[in-house]
C-alpha cells in the first residue's frame, strides 16, 4: 500500500527534478524510485488488510502482481535512455513522472476492493498511456495512435463505468465482498436481477478492451505501431499484467458464483482472441505490428487461465505474465536499437528485414532476441514454456479440452511468426554496419534474458512464492 503512496510522491518529485535540466539525474533517480517502491511493496508480504476506507485490499496476490509490474517497469526505464535524445522539445522529466503515475494506477487496478477504486486505477493508468503514446509529437503515426487510443479507450472506460453502475443497481454494493455475497445468495434462490448480468457483461467488455482481447482489439496494432517503441514495451507488459490482475479478481472473486453464466462467453472470447491474434500475426510484414498481434494472442492464453477458474489459476496467470513481460521487454529493447539505425519509407525500419544478419553485426542482440522469441513461442527451458505449461495445466484441470486443442494449434502458428525473426537474424545476409549499444542498455537486456533462462530451468524460484 505504501508503494502506491510512494510512487505518487516520487512522480511529483520527478517533475521538480526536471528543473535541474539534467538528463543524467532523471534516469538513475527514476530507477531508484522504482526500487524503493519495490522494497516497500515487499514489506506488504503476508499483510492481509484493507486500506483507504476499505477501497484497497492488500494480500499476497497484490504483492506478487505489483512486483511483476514494478520489475517490468524497472527494465523498461532501464531501456529508456534514448527517449528524448538531445531534442530540445522533449520533456523527459514529464515522461518519467507520467510513467510513475501510471504505475501507481496499475497498482490500484491490482489491489482494488471497491469498483470505484478499479475505475480510478483504470483512468490513472489509461490517461497516462494516452499521453505517452503521443509523445513523439512530430510523428504523424504517434499522433494518430494517441487519438485513436484516447477515443477508443474513453469509450471503453465509459462502458466499464456503465457496468459498475448497473452492478451497483443490482447488488447495492461497490465492494467485491458485497457483490460476491449477493451473487451467491441470488443464484441460490434464483432471484438474480437482470441488471447484474448486463452490468457484468459491460464490466467485462471494458476490461477485455484494456487487455486487448478480441473482438475488442482493433485499437491494439495501430497504437502499438504508432507509439514510441519504449512505451509500446510498457503498454504491452505493465498494462496487460494490471488488466489481467483486475479481470481475474472480477471473474473469480466477485463473480465466481456466476461462473456458469460468464464461462461460456469468456470461452468464446478466448477462442476468438487466440485465433485473431495468432493468425493475423502470421501475416504481418512489420515486426512491431506482429508484436502487437502477438500481445493479443498472449491475452488469449492468459484468458484461458481466467476461464479455467481453478485454484491453480492465479499462480499460472502470475507466472505467465512475468514470463511474457520479460520476453516482450527484451524484444522491444532490441527492436529499438535495431530500427533506429535503419530507415524505411521515411521512418524507423520496423519490418522483419531490419533484423537481417543481426547475428553477424551484433551477436549479443541476436542472442537476446532469440531467447525472447523462444520464450514467447513457449520452447522448453525458457520461462515462456513454464508459463504455457502452468496455464495449460489449469485448463486441463478445468476440462477445457476443446479450448486447449485450439490453444496448442495456435502455439504452432506462434512458433511460425516468432521464428521468422530468428531466421532473419541468423540466415539472411546483411550489408549493415555493426549495431552498437551502450553498456546500461546491454546490462538491462542481459538481465531480462538471464531471468528468462533462469526461470526456464528453475521455475520453482518464483513459483513457490506465487
Amino acid at each position, binding site marked *: 500500500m505504501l508503494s502506491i503512496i510512494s510512487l505518487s510522491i516520487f512522480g511529483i518529485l520527478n517533475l521538480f527534478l526536471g528543473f535541474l535540466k539534467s538528463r543524467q539525474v532523471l534516469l538513475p533517480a527514476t530507477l531508484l524510485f522504482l526500487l524503493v517502491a519495490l522494497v516497500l511493496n515487499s514489506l506488504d508480504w503476508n499483510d492481509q488488510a484493507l486500506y483507504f476506507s476499505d477501497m484497497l485490499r492488500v494480500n499476497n496476490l497484490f504483492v506478487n502482481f505489483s512486483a511483476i509490474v514494478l520489475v517490468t517497469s524497472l527494465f523498461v526505464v532501464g531501456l529508456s535512455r534514448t527517449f528524448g535524445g538531445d531534442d530540445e522539445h522533449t520533456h523527459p522529466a514529464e515522461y518519467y513522472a507520467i510513467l510513475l503515475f501510471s504505475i501507481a494506477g496499475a497498482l490500484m487496478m491490482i489491489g482494488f476492493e471497491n469498483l470505484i477504486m478499479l475505475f480510478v486505477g483504470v483512468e490513472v493508468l489509461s490517461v497516462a498511456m494516452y499521453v505517452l503514446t503521443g509523445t513523439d509529437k512530430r510523428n504523424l503515426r504517434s499522433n494518430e495512435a494517441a487519438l485513436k487510443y484516447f477515443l477508443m479507450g474513453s469509450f471503453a472506460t465509459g462502458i466499464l463505468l456503465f457496468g459498475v453502475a448497473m452492478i451497483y443497481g443490482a447488488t447495492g454494493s461497490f465492494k467485491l465482498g458485497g457483490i460476491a455475497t449477493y451473487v451467491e445468495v441470488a443464484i441460490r434462490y434464483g432471484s438474480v436481477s437482470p441488471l447484474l448480468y448486463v452490468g457484468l457483461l459491460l464490466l467485462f467488455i471494458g476490461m477485455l478492451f484494456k487487455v486487448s482481447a478480441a473482438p475488442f482489439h482493433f485499437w491494439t496494432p495501430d497504437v502499438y505501431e504508432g507509439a514510441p517503441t519504449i512505451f509500446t514495451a510498457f503498454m504491452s507488459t505493465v498494462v496487460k499484467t494490471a488488466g489481467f490482475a483486475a479481470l481475474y479478481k472480477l471473474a473469480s472473486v466477485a463473480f465466481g458464483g456466476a461462473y456458469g453464466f460468464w464461462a461460456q462467453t469468456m470461452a468464446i472470447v478466448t477462442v476468438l482472441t487466440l485465433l485473431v491474434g495468432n493468425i493475423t500475426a502470421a501475416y504481418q510484414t512489420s515486426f512491431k505490428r506482429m508484436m502487437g498481434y502477438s500481445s493479443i494472442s498472449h491475452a488469449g492464453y492468459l484468458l484461458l487461465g481466467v476461464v479455467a477458474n481453478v485454484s491453480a489459476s492465479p499462480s499460472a496467470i502470475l507466472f505467465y505474465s512475468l514470463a511474457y513481460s520479460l520476453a516482450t521487454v527484451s524484444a522491444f529493447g532490441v527492436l529499438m536499437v535495431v530500427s533506429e539505425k535503419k530507415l524505411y519509407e521515411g521512418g524507423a525500419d520496423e519490418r522483419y528485414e531490419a533484423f537481417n544478419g543481426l547475428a553477424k553485426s551484433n551477436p549479443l542482440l541476436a542472442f537476446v532476441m532469440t531467447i525472447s522469441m523462444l520464450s514467447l513461442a513457449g*520452447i522448453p527451458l525458457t520461462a515462456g514454456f513454464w508459463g504455457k505449461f502452468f496455464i495449460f495445466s489449469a485448463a*486441463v484441470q478445468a476440462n477445457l479440452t476443446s479450448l486447449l486443442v485450439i490453444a496448442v494449434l495456435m502455439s504452432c502458428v506462434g512458433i511460425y511468426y516468432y*521464428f521468422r525473426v530468428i531466421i532473419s537474424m541468423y540466415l539472411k545476409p546483411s550489408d549493415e554496419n555493426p549495431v552498437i549499444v551502450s553498456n546500461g542498455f546491454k546490462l538491462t537486456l542481459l538481465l531480462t534474458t538471464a531471468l528468462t533462462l533462469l526461470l526456464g530451468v528453475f521455475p520453482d524460484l518464483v513459483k513457490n512464492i506465487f
Partner: protein
Amino acid sequence: MLTLVLILIPLLVALVLLALRGGAVKRVALIASLAELALAVYVLASFQPDTTSQFSLSYHWIKSAGVQFAIGIDGISVLLVLLSTLLVPLIILSTFNHSYRNPSSFYALILFMQSALVGVFVAKDAFLFYFFFEAALIPIYFIAALWGGENRIKVTFKFFLYTIFGSLFMLLGLVYLYLQTPGTHSSLLTAFYGLNLSASQQGFLFWALFIGFAIKMPIFPFHTWQPDTYVESPTPATMLLAGIMLKMGTYGLIRIVLPIVPEGVQQWGLVAIVLAVIGIVYGSIIAIQQQDMKRLVAYSSFAHVGLMAAGIFSLTLDGLQGSLIQMLAHGINVVGLFFIVEIIFSRTQSRDLTQLGGITQNSPVLSVFFIIMVLGSVALPLTNGFIGEFLLLKGVFTYNTWLGIIAGTTIILGAVYMLRMVQKSMFGLQTTVTEQFTDLNLNEILVLAPLAVFVFWIGLFPNGFLKLTEPAVAELLRAMK
C-alpha cells in the same frame, strides 16, 4: 552418476568449443566424442542385462511440480545410448575433409545435439524426456539451416514447424497424464505406468502421444517434411537426423506409448501398423524412382522406419527385440550410405545416377564399403540388417499374416532400389564426371571401417546385443498384459 557424465561431456565441451577458434576445434570435438564413446563402452560392459534401471540418478528438480531430474539406463535404452555415442565420433571424423565455415559453432551444435540425444534415451521423467526431445531439435535445425543447401531456409522451417506441432500434442498428453497422478502429482514415467485410465482416455491419449513420435520417425502420412530436409541438410546433419534422431520416435513408442496406454494401443494398433506398412511399400516404390542418391537413401530410411514401427505395434517379443536391434543396425547402415553419397558428391559434384557410373574402376575400396553397407541395408543374412528385419517381420507375421506378407515386400523392393543404386553408380562405363575419381583416403577409411565391422559383428553375433535388451522387453510386454 555415469549417465549424467554422459550427458555433460558433450554439453560442456560444446560450450568450450564456442570459445575456441581455428583448426583445434575439429580435433577437440573428435576427442570429446571419443571420450564419450569410451565411457559408453564402459557403461555397456558393466551393464547387467536385467529389468532394472542402472547408473540411475534422481534429483528433485522442480519440487512444486513434482518434476524430477531422473535418469538411468535400462535394457530399452542401452543400445540407443551405444548408437548415439558410436555414431557421433564417426560423423565428426567424416567432416574432416570438408571445411565448414564458422567451425566452432558447427561442432558445438553437433555436440549439443549429442547431449540432448543421450538425454532423451536416458530420461526417466516424462517432462525431462520432453525437454531433451525438444532440445535436440534446436541444434539440428540450426545445423541444417545454416550449412544446408539452396532451399534450406524454407525446408528446415517446415521440418521445425512439423515436429514442434507433433511434440506440442505430446506435451498435452503428458500434462494430462501428469494431472491424473495421485497426490501432489509426479511426472516420473513409472508413475504414469500404473495409472488407471479408462478406454476412451487411452484412445485419445494414444493419438496425442503417437502423432508426436509418428512425425519424428516419420510414419506415413506424416513424412512430407523428411525427404527435402534430408536432401537440403549438410551431410553430417542428415546423418544425425537419419542415424540417431529418428530413433527418438521409435524409442518413444516403446518407452512412452506402449506401457502408458496399452489399451489405446490395443484399440488403434492396427491403424498404426497399417500406416506403417503403407509407408514401407510407398517409400520403397518412390525410392525406386529416384535419380538423386541422397533422396533415394532418404526414402529408403522412411521405408525402413515403417517396418520398425510395425514391429513395435505387433506387441510381440520378436517384433520389439527386432526393432531395438534394427534401430542400431539402421543407424550404422544409413550413416555409412549417406557418407558414401557425400564422398561421391564431393568428388564429382553430382548425386545424379544418370550422370554417374564406373566408379569401381578407379576406387575398388570405396565400392567394397559401399556394397557392404548396401548388403546390410537390404538385410542379407550375416549382416546386421538381416537380424533386425527378420525379427521384425516375424513379429508382424504373428500379428497378422497378410500385413506380414505386404511388409515382407520390403526385402524385395529394398534390394531393387539399393542394388539399382550400386549398379548405376559403381558399375557400367565411366562417365565424364567419374573419370578422375580417386579412391578413399585414410580419414574416410577410418569412418567406414568401424561401420563395416559393426555390420558383420551384429550380423554374426547378434546374441550379445539381443541379450542386453531381452529381459527389459519381456518385462514390458508382461506389464502390458
